[in-house]
């Protein structure tokens, strides 16, 4: 059966002459779609990072005129002084862009698309057409989101969590007018894109694995992408429903989330709804979203650390089980964002319990990474540095989760900078490192050329130092009680002694932000002038390195290779080389590890 499909596909692809449009724009080839996701995600990332730098500048030097504000914010920064409304809009759009457009679509979209068919041994995704639609929906939603930045009443400004009534009532803030409508439309399209993508990933992993590629031989990257897709399919529709109900409240006068409101001198007609309902719906996606962002990064890290340690990943079975455990737990912990929302305190107890449980599989993963390094032969390619950096920030950021997940302690630091520090380290920086690791590792596969390693080293070390420099001190201003999302802290003399910390943080942020130019330069320059990539530069075991450097439709020139072993036979005794690709048959008398 599978052989039949193979030859058919192969012939099919051989006969078609591709035009520019079908090859580069409306492509159905998973490798091209991966590149499209990566480049769109990178552009959105530049916008998101610029916004964060503007916010940091405002926090460090509140109310001081700045030519950059004047140039970029226009009427929202009269005389170069940032307006309070646009500050909240920056907070909102920075969060939205980084979480959804960069770390969901940019990360998962790029590497799920690139790696799922290549690593499981498939000619392409189960449905190339759906895959193309998925990308273009993502593109449209990005365009809508960017357009929302230019509407006259300002972009959405209710925080990325868009809690109603603030997000529902244009009377409450100007950003809740047309800007919010566009935000909701953009997210609805985004969710459609994400669902199409996820379904495709799930079907492809289940159905299109090559001969011998049993689930227990899958690289951990594929396990991570697969489980991520399942979480997405389970939780994203709930956000879509919340968004649709919010659209109805905003435009058709329903009262799902609104009740008893008196604003700007008038009583509104809404009766009987509850904003807490929205919080439940939002966080039912919102928390799993953390793992939608993080799991692919951890999957990439597993692959990169094993390859560059020249050692099998330690505890493959435990790694798979912990991915599954995290996925399951992630859907029953959302209430820890709502300890003080006014929900029944008993629920707070339940969610504290489930939340802290998630620390167990996370700890297992961290220890397994560290053990993988032990007695390895570590090759410090830039991807490896970013992966180790990920483990470091994942630990630092994850540990403070035991404070925030504990309802009694969350009262203290809820919505302070402590939270900002926590989630930026554990999901923001960690996932970003995962994305960088993926780019450095699979750049040769994506573009057929090598990235410059020295620029990679420079990029990593400056980024690593500034990331800690930004987010480590931030825990302390949070523990001093400084609330997040304040346009300026100067109305609270109580916090005056924290202003120098904020300046320090901003300096680290500016340095780290500006140094991303190194990466952009390397990324763009190497695409055209980089060293030509060898077929398997990192001497890796997985199937994607058995394909030719030049991309062809259908991935393999001849038959799809069969798989005889798991992907982590590095430094296996009895072999001359320190790696044994998955398509190499077992030697006589050689035993496959049972896991």
């Amino acid at each position, binding site marked *: 059966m599978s052989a039949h499909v193979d030859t058919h596909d192969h012939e099919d692809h051989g006969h078609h002459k591709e035009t520019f449009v079908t090859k580069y724009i409306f492509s159905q080839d998973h490798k091209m779609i991966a590149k499209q996701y990566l480049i769109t995600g990178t552009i959105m990332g530049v916008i998101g990072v610029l916004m964060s730098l503007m916010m940091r500048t405002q926090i460090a030097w509140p109310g001081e005129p700045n030519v950059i504000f004047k140039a970029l914010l226009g009427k929202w920064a009269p005389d170069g002084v940032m307006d309070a409304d646009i500050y909240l809009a920056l907070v909102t759009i920075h969060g939205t862009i980084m979480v959804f457009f960069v770390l969901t679509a940019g990360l998962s979209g790029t590497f799920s698309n690139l790696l799922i068919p290549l690593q499981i041994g498939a000619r392409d995704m189960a449905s190339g057409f759906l895959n193309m639609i998925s990308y273009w929906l993502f593109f449209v939603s990005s365009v809508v989101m960017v357009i929302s930045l230019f509407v006259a009443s300002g972009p959405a400004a209710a925080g990325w969590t868009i809690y109603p009534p603030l997000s529902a009532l244009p009377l409450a803030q100007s950003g809740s007018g047309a800007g919010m409508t566009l935000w909701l439309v953009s997210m609805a399209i985004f969710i459609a894109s994400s669902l199409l993508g996820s379904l495709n990933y799930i079907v492809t992993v289940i159905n299109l694995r090559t001969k011998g590629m049993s689930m227990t031989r899958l690289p951990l990257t594929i396990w991570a992408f697969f489980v991520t897709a399942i979480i997405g399919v389970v939780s994203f529709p709930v956000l879509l429903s919340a968004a649709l109900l919010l659209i109805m409240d905003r435009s058709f006068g329903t009262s799902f989330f609104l009740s008893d409101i008196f604003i700007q001198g008038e009583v509104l007609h809404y009766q009987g709804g509850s904003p807490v309902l929205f919080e439940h719906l939002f966080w039912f996606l919102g928390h799993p979203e953390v793992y939608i962002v993080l799991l692919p990064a951890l999957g990439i890290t597993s692959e990169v650390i094993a390859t560059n340690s020249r050692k099998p990943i330690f505890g493959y079975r435990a790694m798979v089980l912990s991915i599954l455990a995290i996925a399951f737990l992630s859907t029953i912990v959302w209430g820890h964002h709502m300890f003080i929302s006014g929900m029944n305190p008993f629920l707070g107890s339940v969610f504290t319990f489930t939340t802290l449980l998630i620390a167990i599989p996370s700890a297992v993963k961290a220890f397994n990474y560290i053990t993988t390094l032990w007695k390895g032969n570590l090759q410090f390619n830039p991807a490896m540095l970013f992966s180790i950096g990920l483990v470091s920030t994942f630990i630092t950021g994850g540990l403070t989760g035991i404070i925030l997940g504990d309802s009694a302690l969350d009262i203290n630091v809820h919505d302070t900078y402590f939270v900002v520090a926590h989630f930026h380290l554990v999901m923001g920086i960690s996932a970003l490192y995962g994305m960088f690791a993926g780019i450095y590792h699979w750049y040769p596969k994506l573009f057929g050329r090598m990235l410059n390693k020295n620029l990679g080293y420079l990029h990593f070390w400056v980024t690593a130092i500034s990331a800690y420099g930004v987010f480590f001190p931030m825990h302390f201003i949070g523990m001093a009680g400084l609330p997040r999302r304040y346009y300026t802290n100067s109305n609270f003399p109580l916090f005056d002694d924290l202003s120098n910390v904020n300046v320090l943080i901003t300096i680290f942020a500016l340095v780290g932000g*500006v140094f991303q130019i190194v990466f952009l330069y390397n990324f763009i320059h190497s695409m055209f002038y980089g060293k030509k990539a060898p077929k398997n530069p*990192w001497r890796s075991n997985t199937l994607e390195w058995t394909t030719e450097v030049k991309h062809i439709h259908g991935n393999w020139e001849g038959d799809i290779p069969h798989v005889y072993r798991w992907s982590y036979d590095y430094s296996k005794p009895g072999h001359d080389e320190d790696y044994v690709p998955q398509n190499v048959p077992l030697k006589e008398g050689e035993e496959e590890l049972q896991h």
Partner: protein
Amino acid sequence: MTTFLTILVLISISVAIWQMVKIFDLSRQPSTDDSEIATDKDNKVNGYMMMGFLIFIYVITIISFALWGDLPLLSDAASEHGPGVDSLFIVSLVIIFIVQTITQFLLHYFSFKYRGEKGKKALFFADNDRLEFIWTIIPVVVLAGLILSGLFTWTEIMTIDEDDDPIVIELYAQQFNWKARYAGEDNALGKANVRLIDLNTGNILGLDTSDPNAQDDVIVTELHLPVNRPILFKMRSQDVLHSAYMPHFRAQMNCVPGMITQFAFTPTITTEEMRLRPNIVEKINNINKIRIKKSEKLAAKGEEALDRYDFDFLLLCNKICGKSHYNMQMKIVVETEDEFNAWMSQQKDFASSLLPN
């Protein structure tokens, strides 16, 4: 002008980095296809960098604790349940500190120790059930302890004992200020709904004028609390979500339009006592030094100087609520029962504060 210069500097820095990068790029020796793959030299340099980075993490930890480790949220709790929360917080921090120090050491030390060399072969070590068991069971035990003590503390905070005869106070949130409503002699808040708000008569909180309980209610813009008396806060919001954050009392609860939320605590230290505490005195002096410096700068620009700061308990809004979210606050005064009663006797009750329509 300065900003223009800043921009110029920023642009030149970007250009300089780009140029540096370019030189970096061009100065590489022409080499084989493997030239972008880590060599022994790269492994060595980055291995040492890993150790350096470990030291950096430790140093930034020490500096942070030394400079900013005087944490108001971990000392000087001014409510009865506060010290319990603080000690749980500190225990959690100690656990975090220990785990962080050890794991970061292992991670970076292994990276250094096992940096790659040509000809070396890694150990083929794929599984060990005992190790997996150990690092599953250790977190389980530690977390079980944390979960249990967390749940006890949480239940203690959230359980409201009506037998304690708490003073009932409504916290009323609106864009962008707070009001407090005392229940008066009967200690029962009158019924209220935003639909009853009548700005013409000054019924700004929408009290039911026909409700006998409402007549003696007292509406104020500064919150006064008698020390050592349990307080039960009932929270209401008229427009969007707000959050009543009272960090000194380890208290926080959202104010949700359409429903009444609640939080109870007992203040244990008066504002006056707090101002006399040595660490608070030190903090105030430090803040005032900073403010004087800032004032000098402002004076040079011909602007008004900043006021002298003295310690006050505060109620802050801690849920994004719109444009002036950053300035939504109310002063809290904790005082002795006598002072409180004296203050209260000067306030107008609701019935007498209404304007004739």
